[in-house]
């Protein structure tokens, strides 16, 4: 296995325990994980296996009980809250299961918000937000507020918001969990095309096998541990596949 000298994300011996004493629950246990530039990695597992917590640790949203997280070669443990926040802002795009849009803001405002938080001029931020919304196919929904958007559209806005800072890595926590099959598949396809067309690094957590299978690499998680890793091979020609399916 070839290893890039600096992985985008590297977690070493990550453990996260909640509570203490007899009530202690270990959500993530001794996990080692690396995500390389341009890779599409999916973490799969049943609910409660700790995959969301792992993602939170890697995104710097939650500190690990032990172990360390390196983002782009920098150790998160060395950072104070502001540095960590800036890292989240500029380096990591995060997409939640529950869309999590600010409901009083329009689509373009939601997307432009991280740029403005970063001190960009409002006009520039807006222009950039519009461009990214176009990329996710929402150019006709710019001034809608979340309540006027369908679930799939809301998740696209959330995706655009995560992408607008051109993050090093896009982290998606069950991005299709609140969507029906077709809409969820469309979101996953969008992620796939981001990886293929723009070289975006994506780390996705999901329990849906079909959506996970879009990734280049699949990590299976059980009880807080990674139990299997599967690297996808380049697919055969479609004709061969179809022939096989038809028996």
């Amino acid at each position, binding site marked *: 296995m070839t290893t890039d000298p600096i992985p985008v994300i590297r977690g070493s011996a990550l453990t996260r325990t909640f*509570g203490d004493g007899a009530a202690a*629950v270990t959500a993530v246990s001794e996990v080692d994980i690396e995500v390389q530039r341009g890779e599409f990695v999916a973490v799969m597992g049943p609910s409660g296996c700790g995959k969301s917590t792992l993602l939170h640790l890697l995104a710097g949203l939650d500190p690990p009980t032990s172990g360390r997280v390196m983002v782009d070669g920098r150790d998160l443990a060395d950072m104070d809250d*502001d540095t960590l926040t800036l890292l989240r802002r500029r380096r990591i795009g995060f997409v939640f299961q529950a869309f999590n849009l600010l409901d*009083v803001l329009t689509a373009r405002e939601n997307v432009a918000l991280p740029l403005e938080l970063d001190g960009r001029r409002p006009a520039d931020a807006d222009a950039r937000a519009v461009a990214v919304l176009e990329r996710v196919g929402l150019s006709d929904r710019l001034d809608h507020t979340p309540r006027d958007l369908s679930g799939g559209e809301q998740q696209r806005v959330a995706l655009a918001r995560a992408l607008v800072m051109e993050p090093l890595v896009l982290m998606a926590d069950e991005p299709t969990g609140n969507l029906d099959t077709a809409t969820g598949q469309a979101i996953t396809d969008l992620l796939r095309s981001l990886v293929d067309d723009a070289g975006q690094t994506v780390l996705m957590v999901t329990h849906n096998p079909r959506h996970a299978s879009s990734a280049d690499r699949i990590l299976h998680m059980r009880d807080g541990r990674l139990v299997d890793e599967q690297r996808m091979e380049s697919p055969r020609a479609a004709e061969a596949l179809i022939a096989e399916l038809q028996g």
Partner: protein
Amino acid sequence: MIVQRYSRRYMRRRPGRTMLSVSGIAIGVAAIFGISLTIGTTRNAYQRMFSELAGRAELEIVASGYGAFDGDLTRLMANAPGVAAAVPVAVAAAALTSAGGWSAIQVLGVDPSRDGLVRDYRFYRGRMFTDGNEVVIPVALADRTGVKVGDALGVMGSAGSVSLRVSGLLEGGGAAAFNGGAVAFTSLAAAQRLNGGAVGITSIQVVVERDARPEEVQRSLQSIVPAGMLVQTPAARAALGEAALFGTERGLGVLSVVSLVAGAFVILNSFLMGLSERTRSFALMRALGMTRSQVVRMLMGEAALVGAIGAVVGMGLGMALSVVLNAIVAGVLGAALPPIRLTWPPVALSVLLGPGVAVAATALPARRFSVRSPLELLGDRRAAGLTERPSAWLPGAGLACLLFPILVTAALVWNRVGSERLVSLLAPAMASGLIGAALLVPGIFAWLCRPLERGLTRVAGTEGRLAIRDLRRHRIRSSLTIAVLAICVVVSFGFGNSMMISVDDVRQWVDHVTPYDYFARRLWPDVGTMSAPTMPESLEGVLRSLESVDVVDKLCWAATRVNGVVVMSEIGSYSGAGPIAQEVAEGDAAGLYERLESGEVALGSVLAKKLNVRPGQTVTVQTRAGQRPMRVAGIISSYTGGGMTLHLAWPVGVDTLGVSGVHVWMLRAAPGRRQALSDALRRLGVEHGFHVQSMEQFRATVDGAMSGVVAALWVIIAFVFVVASLGTVNTLTMNVIEQMRQLGLMRAVAMTRRQVRRMIVSAAAAMALTSLVPGVAMGFLLAFAMGASHHAVTGYHVDMTIHYSLLAVTVIGAVATAVAAALVPAQRAASMPIIEAIRYE
């Protein structure tokens, strides 16, 4: 930009909460703004009265007691170095005797050839007077009295009634602005005639040369004027009026601070509600890359915006409040105050205080909120590991805060420290006390939970228990609402009680210090200047000769200085059972008047306190013959002149201060002859130009002024209660919204609308009942502190009585307010569609 838009849209989406926050600040600002505007206007009125009188003059030369002096001094002054111009002025206090009744007016005798150097005369019509039979008045006064150029103007001066011909009408501003426009200009001789033929003038007004410094000129002039003359700035005379205002200012000052603290709690409460409602949004923004300081900045920005809007609204309300207060103060002082004038200091104060208090109230929670991790905020309870319990340091801090007002009150009661400084500590001490009481509320609430739960369960069944459970779940929110209700109780009970004690005290004073049946006077002097036309002393013989009269006493007021402090001197003859013996606070009451007749003086209690003088000691009194040491025979409790008074026996006053006229005759009828005396006096009044006022009428006037005070108090209390009820509405609505799902489920399972309503109303009642504990306790403390400060300021003791009727009204008011406020959210909860409620997130 977007962040600001987010804040604004959120505020618009929650109009009720925003309105509450704004009104919280608005009420505080309104109180501060209205009160400081009123105080400012009143002070300003006094200051302007004299500075407008002075025109361009930077200095004036007056006799120490503001009496008359020889006009020859003018020439000496005009030739002194650094003086550009010096003009003589003779002021005569007079009454305008139009058909509608008598009204106070200041008649200025001036030198028409030179007075233009000091004052601008802009004629609207007519011309300057040419001799002592003519007069010039402002056009506004002419309009009010229906006088035209060429008409005769009836003026009652100390020398009696005179008729002057109006030769010209002045436009507003300049000379015409003096004394709120109640002014007339005539020759020096005419004014002197009005003043009873006294040959002197009352001041020389000095314009300093352009390149000379007024302070130096003042010093050099002071060295050449004769003994007993003073060179001062025109505004210096206002000190007397300001002293009279001190008591009023103190009360209003405490009230405005209390309102501001209440406002701070209201905004803190609605701010915390906003935070808990938007926790997810903030978590999200944190996750997206909002730094802690950006969170704090955003929250502070919101608070500042609410504060700014509150300040603007508060200033509007404050204007209305100050109009009411102004009328009340004018009534209390017996002076015509000019209309409220918007000045910069109160505006600046409000503009700073509005956003300032809002930001200060929210700074701590905002900061604490900002350090919470995004995950914790996103509702990951496991990651949060946080408890919704109020901090453990609250009771300790609360008790510490309470210590301050307790110490101040104790110090006031024992009066060990310089009293005026202590009194100025009263407002901050009360603010600290209220904050302390609020900090103790969570503890008190926890302590009362069980008995309240038991009681409410008995009254309202299970709904009562559910109500308490709801309140406990949101202890901080409930506690803040209880705190606001408690402040209402403090204001209503504590403030009301001390106000009612003062009112009772004034009424008592009126009763026992004036054992007379009738007063005869031309005009009552106003409290600020104590100037009014006098009556000749020779009238005494005529009054005494009436067969129906038993006692004839006389009073006259004049300004002077004691140990350099400007005071009002009250010169009176008190035959036998005179009032002065009744008012003695310190010293031997028996024989006091005899000692005053022998040349000793008595001091008003406030003045004695201020100068730290006790009976038997000596003070230096400015007399017409210079400084003179006089022995203090006693200390007098008096409402006159705000207690800054010097009391002299009549002959001594005539001798030392040179007073000549009588302001008021005080008469007692021979047994059974009241009606006869009244009739005789009214006949004499027509002949000699005075009004007769019976004791009952006088008391009615005082009562009228006091009713105004009481009415204003109720208005402010009602105002505070309205804000508290808004706070209750908001807290309960928030509880309802947060538990929408739960309420929906309860409704779906078993609860009737009536039960839902009863549950929410029970919660309101529980909060109101809890608020009574700290509210009544702090109310007592406030009442005691105000009573003690009264003692500290006036130097005499006021019995501390508790008006239980007021306590009852307060208790009922608090509970009724809370219950009434609960009806809105109760209705909302009861009428919501069940299915929608269950779906609510």
